[in-house]
């Protein structure tokens, strides 16, 4: 959990091991629109002690399930603008299949389970907390989830 931008190159270097032949990274970027509304920026709030233990549990699960060398994840909190990196995941592995699958597993689980909440700020001055429909933490979500704003003017 990071309250300010993180040097991604340093995170990648933690994964750069001589036994690793494949590396898969995922970044979530703040988009300029969501559900047709122009986004100016957003703010993430997190319950940090639980986010840290839950994040570590997700990484541990990735190590158990896939033949990977190393995995690192970072999630921003605080105010972000369009184009900023909201979440970063990197996985290295001897072979690429495990790197891809573990990286996908980690971002899917972060989206489903990590106690982090997004408030969108729109260009018209409105704001709202975004809420996702999936029942969190229970399924292996292979899609993007269905997200809707619950409007609080």
């Amino acid at each position, binding site marked *: 959990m990071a309250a300010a931008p993180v040097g991604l190159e340093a995170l990648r270097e933690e994964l750069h091991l001589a036994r690793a032949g494949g590396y898969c990274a995922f970044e979530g970027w703040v988009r300029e629109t969501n559900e047709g509304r122009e986004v100016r920026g957003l703010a993430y709030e997190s319950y940090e002690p*639980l986010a840290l233990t839950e994040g570590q549990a997700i990484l541990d699960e990735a190590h158990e399930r896939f033949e990977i060398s190393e995995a690192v994840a970072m*999630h921003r909190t605080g105010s972000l603008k369009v184009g900023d990196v909201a*979440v970063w995941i990197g996985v290295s592995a001897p072979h690429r299949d495990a790197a891809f699958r573990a990286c996908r597993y980690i971002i899917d689980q972060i989206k489903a389970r990590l*106690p*982090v*909440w997004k*408030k969108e700020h729109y260009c018209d001055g409105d704001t709202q*907390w975004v809420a996702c429909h999936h029942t969190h933490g229970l399924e292996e979500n292979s899609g993007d989830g269905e997200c809707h704003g619950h409007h609080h003017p």
Partner: protein
Amino acid sequence: MPRIDLEYFAQLGEEAGRRHETRVTDATTAAALYDELRGEYGFSLASERMRVAINTAFRPWNETLADGDVVVFIPPVTGG
């Protein structure tokens, strides 16, 4: 009656008008405590759409509360 520390996140924080409080309650479970708070603050979220954390770990809603517990209701998460 147990004294409970509460932290509120996302829409719960806005609806409660505060980020944390310490409260003496006669609710004996997390579920009963949420019902009590929902009556007071008019929270829009049903407990069925949330999870609850006690002392920084996810716990069942019927968990019995003890004096000094830190209770956090977890709205549907939207990280990533």
